[in-house]
């Protein structure tokens, strides 16, 4: 059957997350971007929404089961409030969800309850590398088995909360495949850059470079145990999280510029009454809807373990990255000169929007 109606529980969740996003995240959004600081209390409050906790079964301390569809609905709402804040709230998922999806029983037992049952804790993952042709399936960071240990070498970029992290899930190329490795923050040879990354957007989110120089970890720290794990489900989850966050940012920009166009007058009418502006808005709304449905379908396929789910997630994230660029750019255009001024949020959304083409790996669903 085809159906486009979320369940009642999903509606309620979206509603709750939406309130937090509009009231809490949106309120501090600009201040956080300028001061490069997210209030810890705010992250804690977002954590208490229980998005990750609801993805983890009771046996590991959670109270639900992971659903990609629920995930994409929730992430769109969070990102609607503020992208940096949304990513900060979800950072522990970068560690916990791969463990849930691909970890060995021992790894699940060791980490999941610890992460889930307490307050927000800086568990994180290092995925992105600083190369123009960065490729999820062809990493430059390497992991080589040497005796009973893996030796990791390479440099990672854009690792959220790396400085204060308890442990980092590091992705590296191992026998030609991308594999995760659980590395304690204190491991010898692992160093976190002193300076935070300085990017075009996402300034409130503390992101770091992480260097790995002959970092040795026990073989049992390979995600999934000795045989490792399939990487596709992890990558699909990253892609859909990124795509749904793009939806949230785009929707924020669309609604803001729509409301502005309804207020702003020129030549005796509201500018929204000019077809030149109205058509831009119509196309923005149409593209958001188009990509949202693509994201939903990919998420549903992932939940149903359909054969083409991974490819659909790839298409959805590719399309959503283009869409958010188009929508946020037009939002700035509709506000004209005012859109370029940092008093309005649209210039920030434009900067954040541009990031989606390269920031897969900063969230998971």
């Amino acid at each position, binding site marked *: *059957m*085809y*159906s*486009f*109606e*979320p*369940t009642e529980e*999903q509606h309620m969740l979206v509603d709750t997350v939406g309130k937090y996003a509009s009231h809490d995240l949106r309120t501090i959004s600009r201040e956080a971007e300028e001061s490069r600081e997210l209030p810890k209390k705010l992250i804690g409050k977002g954590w208490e929404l229980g998005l990750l906790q609801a993805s983890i079964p009771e046996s590991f301390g959670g109270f639900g089961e992971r659903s990609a*569809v629920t995930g994409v609905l929730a992430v769109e709402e969070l990102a609607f409030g503020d992208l940096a804040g949304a990513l900060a709230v979800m950072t522990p998922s970068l560690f916990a969800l791969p463990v849930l999806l691909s970890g060995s029983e021992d790894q699940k037992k060791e980490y999941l309850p610890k992460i889930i049952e307490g307050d927000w804790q800086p568990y994180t993952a290092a995925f992105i590398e600083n190369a*123009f*042709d*960065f*490729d*999820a*399936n062809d990493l430059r960071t390497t992991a080589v088995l040497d005796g009973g240990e893996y030796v990791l070498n390479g440099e990672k970029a854009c690792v959220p909360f790396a400085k204060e992290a308890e442990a980092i899930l590091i992705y590296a190329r191992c026998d030609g495949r991308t594999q995760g490795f659980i590395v304690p923050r204190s491991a010898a040879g692992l160093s976190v850059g002193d300076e935070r990354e300085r990017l075009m957007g996402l300034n409130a989110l503390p992101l770091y470079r992480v260097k790995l120089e002959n970092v040795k970890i026990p073989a049992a720290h390979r995600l999934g145990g000795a045989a490792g794990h399939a990487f596709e489900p992890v990558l699909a989850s990253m892609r859909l999280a990124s795509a749904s966050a793009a939806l949230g940012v785009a929707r924020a920009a669309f609604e803001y510029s*729509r409301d502005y*166009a*309804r207020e702003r007058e020129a030549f005796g009418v509201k500018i*929204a*009454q000019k*077809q030149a502006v*109205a*058509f831009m*808005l*119509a*196309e923005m*709304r*149409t593209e958001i*809807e*188009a*990509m949202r*449905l*693509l994201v*939903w*379908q990919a998420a*549903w*396929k992932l939940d*149903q373990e359909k054969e083409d789910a*991974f*490819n*659909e997630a*790839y*298409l*959805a994230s*590719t*399309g959503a990255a*283009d869409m958010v660029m188009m929508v946020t750019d037009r939002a700035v255009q509709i506000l004209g000169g005012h859109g370029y001024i940092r008093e309005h949020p649209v210039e920030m959304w434009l900067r954040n929007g541009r990031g989606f*083409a390269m920031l897969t790996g900063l969230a998971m669903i």
Partner: protein
Amino acid sequence: MAIEFEAPKPIVQMQTVLKTVAEEMMRSKSRYFDEHEHEIPWDYIEFMHTAMKSMGVGALVPREEKKAEDPNKPKRPPIGYQLLASQIEMLAWGDVGMYLITPGGGLGAAAVQAAGSPEQQAKFLARFIEDKPTFAAMCMTEAGAGSDTSAIRARAVLDEKTHEWVLNGEKIFVTAGDKSLTEYKQLGRGFIVVWASIDPSAGRAGMRAFVVESGTPGVRVVKLEHKLGIRVSDTASISMVDAHIPFENILGSPTVEKTTTGFKGAMATFDATRPLVAISGLGVARAALEFLKGKLKENGIEIRYGLPRQKLTNIEREVIDMDIMLKSAWLMVMKAVWMADNKKPNALESSMSKVKAGDVTTRITQKVVEILGPLGYSREFLAEKWFRDAKITDIYEGTGQINRLVVARQILGYSGSELR
């Protein structure tokens, strides 16, 4: 309810059957009828009529839901429009021009269904399941009235003596107008639904639709258009000179209230039909994209899905972007028809699906011809024909611009006078 994307069984089964029809009866004749404009593919028409009759339907219309026999049985959600959209997609994949002359009521019957009384529906719609294939058509556009339907000049005047309507005017761009009006021996008696004003001073409020039967004196086809594409589908100009039709052939109220609710009701028909037109374009786009992929494969080019853009070739990027466009547009149509099936107001979704489909159908077929180079431009293959066929998607049933206007009014909460 929950979000779900599993194709219902009836849709999957129907698609298997229609794929064979599309390949055997349509694709194989596509080129011939493109090059022999105004010839009629009787084989296809008769085959489709027989096939639909054996299924108990006389036309491509949303299947009526059977009355629940057993109240204890869980009711299956209605999928009439979803099934219809899937049928149209498959037929258009075969040949969109031929799909347009699939026998049955088309937009004419849709208007009777939407605006007619139960008596009118019984009277006018029964003919489609009779022995001969039968057509009906919608006559809206005039030389001076395209998207702006309020500019319609055709007049309907009540003749008090005979208690008949007298119609005068000329309609253009009537899809299947010839087959609905001209008395071919192979066809049953068809009709056209004519939009005309009963009170020009009332503007849109005075606009009504009238059923005009084939054979009505004073009504005739005066021209068949020669078109860029969809050439197998007849596009007629129809003139009406003092055409007398029965009083009861008016759809809706014979009196004029000074509101436009009647007209808006008629416009609501488009909420149901726009996604169907949208998906007919997507059938063409899918045909073109599949053809491109096949040709690339023959030439040893595999699309490496999953790579970052930086590592893809230009052709790969183009194909992946086309996949995204096509899949997302298809989903928009399915959402719009799903809403129609579930009686949810879908004016916004319906128009958005048409905006999107108009764009992507045009873009994809353009790109396919471009990427295939000389192969794309050659009439040896169908790519160039699909490019010509596709263009109409962004024009009929509301141009891309009109649909943008509808979408914009919806999202801004503006009336027609606030956003003109």
